[in-house]
């Protein structure tokens, strides 16, 4: 945008581009003051570019004494080559070729973008007759303000200095590729969940500061209260609360900037609107920060933190500081310290608040937490924000999905990745364990209990995002192995059996009753949904293989494999013909309870037995048991019918009634709510992938030749009545080459929360579906798998996409796979072995391009 004159900009910028003529003219008082203001802005962490044709030496001689050492400023020289200030004098700005000033501005904007500062946060002040810079500013979406001379420049810079000195609320760069606004029609509390931020495993919902509502605002991974089925995540002291006087906020805009991890809220219609900006720091685990502003007589900040009503927590404080401890001795606790400052800029009152949360069985002492918050405050909000933006920009350089043909889906997938990063944050700065509840820390839904969602939906996603996080999630299960052993013992079996719903100590917290629509039902998942034991084992092996950590598997994770295999070995029934069975189970398709030989359960148990035997062999221990496990695995039936190539989902499934999923049963639909529990059990309708889930997790065990027959059989019978269903179904369909069908399923998956398709986002995000969405792109469309230390690629593009790029981590590498119509390009930071579409292994040291092979339809496969 090109403004008419040097009126106040009305917002805070993060970088300034100014023409040299405003700085050097005559060395008069005004020019000196401009230099002084530039130096002051630099101290406030504002990036500067002075555009000139002068030599670097001359510019430095003029500017360096004014700006002082340690400031960061960049200018292009007469040759057109931009230099950057450095500790030893000016250095060429890397990667920028010589050229006209516009090119330097472009390079500067690129450099800023790489540090999370978008062009909407840049103020560009061209010269009086400076068409070149004005054009550069317009092209880059900068706020471009022509100035007649130093007095006008001074006014603009003074405004920026004043806004920073008085702690005015910054803004975000409104880039539609990265900005999520509140979806129309959603309940306010649902949007609160969508706009949650997390750091160090502590999640803060995007609730209004002055009116947070009934839902807990702050929750932490693994910090519970209560016992048994009623155990739930503990509401923690709230750091975002403000008292805002005057009329209640009637209309507002909320914007979540995914690219920088910042949430902005702006009241509409008020002369001096309420504005807030908050962040959960990406580099300082547990540190959160907020700025707020409103008309001076409306702003009454109150205490820097508040204990939720009815919560037992010790709270104290003096002066600007508040401290609190929440939790009891038996469970994980949280320690919180918060500090705030007030400011005033004319008729605008401001508040700045910084808090630090620490959680764990033995959280650090308060003095340590206070020292952290003091250090953060000393660093300053501006620098915390700058660091936050840069850290998120680095994250997105490494982990991202780019679909130029489908920007809406691209943003929705980034939204998933954003919240998966939030989950991953729990692995950092804490105990090294990560409890992943069904809604993460975004809400109290499902009480924070840990399901198989964590093991096979979220862990695979985290392994490709942040291996520390997937390892910490596996460690969480490992630490609860004693409870799993006890559960197996109580049920008369050997080894370890993980509970369907796991509580703080790994105990079974599955409720006994529930509701199916309006009907009360007995809950049998705790008793019968046993596949979770194999799912836990699978997640450990998957993490070790995907991240290439064999020692993790042979060391800390080995007891998990061994004990789960022992459980299955003692759980199997061997019939008179020597075939092994698992009777009385519930598979992932929860519409059919108490079935025998559920295909998924049996295939995963078989895989578990074999994986444990392999690990035992490699570790050189329990050899006799390993032999028995392999033998038993070979006897476990899986329902495969050689005549049809299909797996029967369980014994007797083919005899169930076939029902067309049309009309009121058109997927996605909660078919069990429609037909009732007994009614749906009589049919072949299934809730979510069961046999196909086995194809997804352990394709070699499921038999590759059965994939298409099983898709043909179960695809039309799947109601997708679970939020877990569309993402995995998309991954499997894409892998099978049914990419257009897969794309529709993926769209449903990413809309689950953003459009509240489940109607339950109020109680938190469906983090497993987010993990499934990422898996669908990564393993489905991009066709990425890791086997035997090699990266396997078999990409499949839907007709609507000409290209897709995924950036992810695997095998200890940072990888990029770009799939185009005719080629696939792999880029890696370290050498990696790649097998493309079943071809021979190829060693890729930096980048390699593979021609895509045609599929049966003649398109590149």
């Amino acid at each position, binding site marked *: 945008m090109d403004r008419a004159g040097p009126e106040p900009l009305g917002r805070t910028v993060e970088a300034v581009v100014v023409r040299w003529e405003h700085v050097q003219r005559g060395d008069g008082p005004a020019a000196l003051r401009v230099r002084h203001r530039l130096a002051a802005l630099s101290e406030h962490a504002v990036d500067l570019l002075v555009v000139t044709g002068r030599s670097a030496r001359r510019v430095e001689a003029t500017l360096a004494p004014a700006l002082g050492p340690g400031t960061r400023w960049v200018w292009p020289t007469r040759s057109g080559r931009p230099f950057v200030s450095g500790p030893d004098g000016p250095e060429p700005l890397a990667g920028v070729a010589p050229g006209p000033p516009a090119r330097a501005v472009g390079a500067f904007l690129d450099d800023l973008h790489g540090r999370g500062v978008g062009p909407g946060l840049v103020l560009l002040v061209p010269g009086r007759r400076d068409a070149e810079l004005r054009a550069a500013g317009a092209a880059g979406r900068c706020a471009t303000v022509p100035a007649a001379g130093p007095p006008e420049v001074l006014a603009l810079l003074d405004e920026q200095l004043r806004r920073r000195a008085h702690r005015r609320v910054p803004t975000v760069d409104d880039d539609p590729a990265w900005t999520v606004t509140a979806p*129309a*029609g*959603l*309940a*306010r*509390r*649902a949007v609160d969940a969508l706009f949650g931020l997390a750091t160090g495993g502590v999640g803060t919902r995007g609730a209004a500061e002055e009116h947070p*509502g*009934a*839902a807990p605002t702050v929750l932490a991974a693994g910090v519970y209260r209560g016992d048994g089925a009623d155990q739930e995540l503990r509401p923690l002291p709230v750091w975002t609360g403000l008292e805002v006087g005057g009329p209640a906020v009637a209309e507002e805009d909320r914007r979540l900037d995914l690219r920088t991890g910042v949430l902005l809220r702006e009241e509409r219609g008020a002369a001096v609107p309420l504005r807030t900006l908050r962040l959960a720091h990406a580099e300082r685990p547990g540190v959160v920060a907020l700025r707020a502003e409103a008309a001076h007589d409306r702003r009454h900040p109150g205490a820097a933190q508040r204990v939720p009503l009815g919560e037992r927590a010790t709270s104290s404080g003096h002066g600007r500081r508040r401290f609190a401890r929440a939790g009891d001795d038996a469970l994980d606790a949280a320690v919180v310290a918060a500090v705030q400052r007030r400011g005033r800029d004319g008729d605008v009152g401001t508040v700045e608040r910084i808090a630090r949360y620490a959680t764990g069985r033995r959280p650090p002492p308060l003095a340590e937490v206070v020292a952290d918050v003091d250090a953060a405050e000393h660093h300053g909000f501006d620098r915390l924000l700058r660091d936050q933006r840069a850290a998120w920009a680095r994250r997105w350089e490494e982990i991202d999905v780019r679909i130029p043909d489908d920007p809406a889906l691209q943003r929705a997938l980034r939204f998933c990745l954003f919240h998966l990063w939030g989950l991953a944050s729990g692995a950092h700065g804490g105990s090294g364990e990560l409890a992943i509840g*069904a809604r993460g820390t975004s809400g109290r*839904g*499902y*009480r924070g*209990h840990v*399901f198989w969602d964590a093991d096979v939906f979220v862990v695979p996603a985290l392994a490709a995002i942040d291996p520390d996080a997937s390892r910490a999630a596996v460690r969480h299960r490992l630490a609860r192995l004693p409870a799993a052993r006890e559960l197996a013992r109580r049920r008369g079996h050997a080894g370890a059996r993980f509970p369907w*719903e796991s509580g703080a100590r790994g105990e079974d917290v*599955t*409720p006994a*009753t*529930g*509701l*199916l*629509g*309006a*009907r009360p*039902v007995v*809950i049998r*998942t705790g008793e019968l949904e046993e596949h979770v034991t194999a799912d836990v084992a699978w997640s450990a092996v998957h993490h070790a293989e995907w991240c290439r950590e064999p020692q993790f598997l042979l060391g800390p994770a080995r007891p998990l494999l061994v004990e789960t295999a022992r459980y299955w070995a003692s759980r199997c029934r061997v019939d008179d013909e020597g075939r092994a069975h698992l009777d009385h189970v519930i598979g992932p398709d*929860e519409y059919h309870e108490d079935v025998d030989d559920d295909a998924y359960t049996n295939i995963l148990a078989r895989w578990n037995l074999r994986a444990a035997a392999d690990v035992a062999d490699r570790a050189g221990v329990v050899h006799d048991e390993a032999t028995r496990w392999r033998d038993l695995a070979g006897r476990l039936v899986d329902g495969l019918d050689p005549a049809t190539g299909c797996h029967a989902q369980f014994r007797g499934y083919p005899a169930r009634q076939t029902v067309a999923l049309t009309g*009121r049963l058109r997927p*996605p*639909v*909660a078919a*069990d*709510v*429609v037909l009732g529990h007994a009614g749906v059990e009589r049919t072949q309708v299934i809730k979510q992938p069961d046999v196909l889930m086995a194809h997804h997790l352990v394709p070699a065990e499921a038999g590759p030749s059965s994939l298409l027959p099983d898709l043909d059989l179960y695809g039309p019978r799947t109601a*997708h*009545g*679970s*939020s*877990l269903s569309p993402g995995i179904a998309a991954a499997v369909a894409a892998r099978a080459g049914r990419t257009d069908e897969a794309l529709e399923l993926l769209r449903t998956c990413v809309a*689950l929360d953003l*459009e*509240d*398709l*489940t*109607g*339950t*986002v*109020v*109680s*938190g995000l469906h983090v497993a579906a987010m993990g499934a969405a990422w898996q669908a792109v990564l393993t489905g469309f991009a066709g990425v798998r890791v086997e035997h230390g090699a990266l396997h690629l078999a990409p499949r593009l839907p007709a609507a996409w000409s290209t897709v790029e995924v950036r992810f981590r695997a095998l200890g590498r940072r990888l990029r796979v770009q799939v185009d119509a005719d080629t696939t390009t792999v880029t890696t930071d370290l050498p990696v072995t790649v097998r493309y579409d079943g071809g021979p292994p190829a060693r890729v040291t930096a980048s390699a391009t593979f021609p895509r092979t045609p599929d049966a339809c003649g398109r590149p496969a």
Partner: protein
Amino acid sequence: MSDVLLPERPGEQLLVVGRAAAAALDAGLREAPAGPGADGVEDLLAELAGHDTAVAVLPTGAAGWEVACRASAPVLLVPPGTGRLRFGRVLAPLDGTAPAGLAIPRVARFGPRDLLVLHVLDPSDPPRFWDQAAHAGEAWADAFLARWCDHPTARLLVRSGRAADQVVAVAREERPDLVVLGWAQHSESPRAPVVRRVVADADVPVLLVPVGGQVPGPSTLRTDPPTALP
């Protein structure tokens, strides 16, 4: 200040109810003046149109129904036998649409201690997802209340079946002080039969809140399991 309106010569029962309503709403109480209308309906409507009225309290019957169908203010229809009314326990059937939800702010002004929200699932338009029966009902109820009835004393009852039957049945089981229904006041509305049935069969007062023309934006999202309620 808006008033509670009673018909001309209301009788002891309506007077008691009217006084209770006025006390709950901190409103004045006035009787409609005598007018030329044969059955008083037109007089009442004219009175409602000419004054700021919080609620009109009328006996259940043909005249009361006609006023409720045409009035711009809420109408409390009181069946015979109604005793002293406290407004402490209110049954609010909501179908997951904006018009029905608009009745909640009106009834909230009575300050109910127990706001019992009833939602009747319609098998012909079921929810899309029901993840874990152990928790889905709780999560769904939480979301439903957050969206349609963000009131501190609200709790949700979920039933399935024919909406009118369920509302009448729950009104008998739970013994609320009154039932509140938002409606669009025209017989073509799919909810009109339900309103008529509840007014006819419920043995507690029914507060009918006209919501025509007040619907903010789309009335429903496909995310919400709608019902056949008014």
